[in-house]
């Protein structure tokens, strides 16, 4: 009598957690090298990935080889080329740092492995309820096809030695730039940072915020974006080089802030200014801040292509990235400084303590200073805005 109950209890305990299949995954992963395709322009991220490789090697016998991309789309293009050549197994891309348009494109074309997120034991620390930040990627439902690993939030960075009162809204930014011509710019709109800047402005300026959560249509695009273009037509002539050319990405603009070419830069990472100061890449007086009405935030994910050669290894790495200890390490401003993707309510006391113990810096905004987090518009807005921008301002 006792034995069946015990068995039933054990089964009940084991099955919902999926421990057994996970053990199989961990066993299969041992000895694998995971080719993680990740944008390589940020040395801190590269260092973090190298650190993660050491950790997963020690814990699971899995090594990570970072494939440094100039643009995430390179990895997408590679998977497409592999599918083109009929290489449906043993593909060269095991894991991609991805979100937004690239995720939508891969998901729609059936290029992703999954759903796999709920198979990861550490997904228990995530808030995966419908509509939560970790279950929606630019309004596209994640549906278990990508696993979160870092939180990003739009911030502006100014040098407090040169700008006392930084603009706190897009309207103030326009006035500031008119008063200080040539001292502000934004990254090229073909870069995600540049289009994020326009989206941030759109959210603040449009009369119809709700429309942004639905796919953009030809019918409503002009009406919804009209205030944006009116604002931008005024802003552009006041930009660095008269808005004729733009820095390639936010890193280049950070360098321009350091050189004194512009006074304000932007980032998708509240800790970037603190980390850059630490590394001698920005003056001590640089400060990151959020806008009064809040700024766009989103979560970066990792996804596994359908033809990845080392799916098990990639899942082990995705799971490792969700460890509370890993997330706390990543939030350290000396490391990555990116905020945790885990739901604090689901963490134990000891796990939360690791986050409280992290160092702080004057360049690092507090959560209050950052303001509320605004949800990303549907990716079709980004695509259409980027296209419309290119049509309007490219000769």
């Amino acid at each position, binding site marked *: 009598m006792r034995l069946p109950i015990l068995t039933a209890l054990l089964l009940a305990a084991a099955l919902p957690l999926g421990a057994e299949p996970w053990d199989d995954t961990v066993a299969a992963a041992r000895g694998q090298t995971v*080719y993680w395709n990740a944008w*390589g*322009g*940020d*040395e801190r991220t*590269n*260092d973090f990935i*190298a650190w993660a490789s050491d950790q997963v090697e020690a814990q699971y016998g899995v090594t990570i*080889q970072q*494939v*440094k*991309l*100039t*643009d*995430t*789309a*390179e*990895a*997408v*293009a*590679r998977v*497409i*080329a*592999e*599918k*083109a*050549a*009929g*290489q449906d197994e043993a593909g*060269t*891309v095991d894991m991609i740092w991805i979100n937004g*348009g*690239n995720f939508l*494109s891969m998901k729609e*074309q059936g290029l992703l492995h999954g759903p796999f997120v709920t198979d990861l034991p550490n997904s228990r620390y995530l808030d995966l309820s419908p509509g939560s930040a970790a279950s929606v990627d630019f309004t596209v439902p994640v549906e278990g096809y990508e696993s979160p690993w870092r939180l990003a939030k739009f911030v502006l960075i100014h040098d407090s030695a040169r700008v006392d009162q930084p603009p706190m809204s897009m309207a103030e930014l326009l006035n500031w730039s008119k008063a200080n011509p*040539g001292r502000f710019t934004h990254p*090229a709109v*073909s870069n995600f940072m540049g289009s994020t800047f326009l989206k941030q402005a759109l959210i603040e300026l449009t009369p119809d915020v709700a429309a942004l959560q639905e796919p953009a249509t030809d019918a409503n695009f002009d009406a919804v974006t009209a205030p944006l273009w009116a604002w931008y037509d005024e802003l552009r002539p006041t930009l*660095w080089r008269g808005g*004729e*050319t*733009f820095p*390639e990405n936010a*890193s*280049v603009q950070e*360098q*321009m802030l*350091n*050189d*004194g*070419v512009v006074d304000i830069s932007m980032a998708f990472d509240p800790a970037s200014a603190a980390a850059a100061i630490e*590394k*001698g*890449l920005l*003056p001590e007086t640089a400060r990151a801040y959020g806008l009064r009405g809040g700024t766009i935030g989103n979560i970066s994910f990792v996804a596994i292509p359908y033809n990845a050669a080392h799916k098990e290894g990639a899942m082990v790495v995705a799971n490792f990235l969700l460890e509370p200890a890993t997330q706390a390490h990543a939030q350290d401003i000396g490391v990555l400084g990116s905020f945790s993707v885990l739901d604090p309510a689901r963490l134990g006391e000891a796990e939360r303590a690791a986050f409280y113990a992290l160092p702080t810096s004057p360049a690092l905004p507090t959560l209050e200073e950052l303001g509320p987090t605004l949800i990303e518009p549907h990716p079709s807005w980004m*695509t259409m805005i980027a296209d419309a921008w*290119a049509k309007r*301002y*490219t*000769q």
Partner: protein
Amino acid sequence: MTRAGGRWLRGLVLAVVMLGLVLPIAAGLWETLAAAFGHLPAIGETGASLDPWRRLLDLPGVVTSVKLTLWTGLASTAIALLLALGAAGWAHRRFGPRALGRVLTPFLAVPHAALAIGLAFVIMPSGWIARAISPWATGWDLPPDLAIVNDPAGLALILGLVIKELPFFLLVTLAALAQIPVGSQMRAGRAIGYPPAQVWAFVIVPQVYAQIRLPVYVVLSFALSVVDMAIILGPSNPPVLAVAMTRWFLAPDSGLILPASAAAMTQALIVVGAIALWRGAEALIAVAGRAILRQGRRRHAWAGAARASAGIAATLFVLGLLSLAALTVWSIAWRWSFPDMWPETLSLHSWARPGAGWGLAVLNTAVIGFATTALALVLAVAWLEGEDRGGLARARWAEALVYLPLIVPQVAFLFGLQVVFLRLGVSGGIGAVIWAQALFVFPYVMIALSDPWRALDRRLLRAAAALGAGPARRLFAVKLPILLRPLLTAAAIGFAVSVAQYLPTLFMGAGRVPTLTTEAVTLSSGSDRRVTGTYATLQSALPFLAYAAAFFIPAWVFRHRRALSGEPG
């Protein structure tokens, strides 16, 4: 046996070249062409349609991109060529060709990307030149808002290309001069009252040009299709066509692959069209030149032009050297803000961590460089030896094949080639990268080796044969040792070409084979000039070491045999 054996050997080499070099390019072009007309089953597109072309024309800025491509490519090639011909007219009587060659060769070693990264820092408004004169001379506490780098007219890109191509043109000009009785022709010209510079411009230059026409087309094709340098120095909104197309190929919207393929075909047409245009200009200049000559005026202005070209060329060399120095200084800087001339604090931080990436990149770069160079060298020696043994004359049509990878723009066939490689199951590895790079390394090695090889004193071989040495022994005991210097020079050129390859490494290596070049270009889009400086310094240092080896090894081996320099003449 040797004659038939020689034919067989050259036939084999030709087969290898056809299969390994011509066929992949043709197949790559074919796949790209198919995609340009709407056929790419991989993304669910089949059939022939003109839709990709319509979409290409609808892409914003595409017309400007084409104009910019033609302008930067033609202007940079023309300026570099004119400066080289002018500067050579001033320099050839003052320096021996060998001394000048030794100064110039290391310049060839510098990869385009490294030079571009360094040059951008030297000339930008917040760069080294501005820092040197600020604020004391300019009053700039903050850098001025001037469009110097990434300027809409592409002037910075033209400057970068000219700095890079000028030494190459000077070297081929000097090599061509060796084939012309310059001294006697100059004396003849002067005897009838023409100033030397005018004799140079109207008598020597046309003969030189006839010999360097093919390298000129190679440079023109390269300048029209360059990607890495154009990303760093060129206009950005819109960029030149090659950069725009690379972006479309890699865009998240995979539907852009079709118009990108159409752009790749456009790129090929641009190169063909530009070469045709150039030929037309050649004919016009020849007519004009003869007309001027017939007037018989003795003009001294040409001397000024030659001196001016030499002066400009020297300035450009200094700018090139400053660019390289800038890379090295950045690599040891910690904080360095405007308008400081030197870093506030120095640090070996980025050098101290080979594990952070540059260790692996150096290793990959060296392995790929050695492998491609060895492959290309063996193939080139086999080709030339086959000619010798078969008693065959140099086959112009076969040599034209060698130039194929240099004339056809890389972007036009690399995407298609990637699909072909994938179908063969060879993508994503170092092997695929070695193969793809060998396509571009072999031509340079072949070109560098063939003239010294054919200039070898045949009496030595006849003497060896008379002493009973068979063809194998003649090759290994006589030819190769005598030709050690040109062999190593060809190898150094091949190695430098391999190190500089960007697109083939990126496409064929599936991005999984990080080399110094791919990493340097990636990092140049980041904010940390110190790390970029480290990679770019290493990227220039490796080929430089190869050239140094090519110079010092024969000097040491032949230290007791001065006549065995292995150079013609």
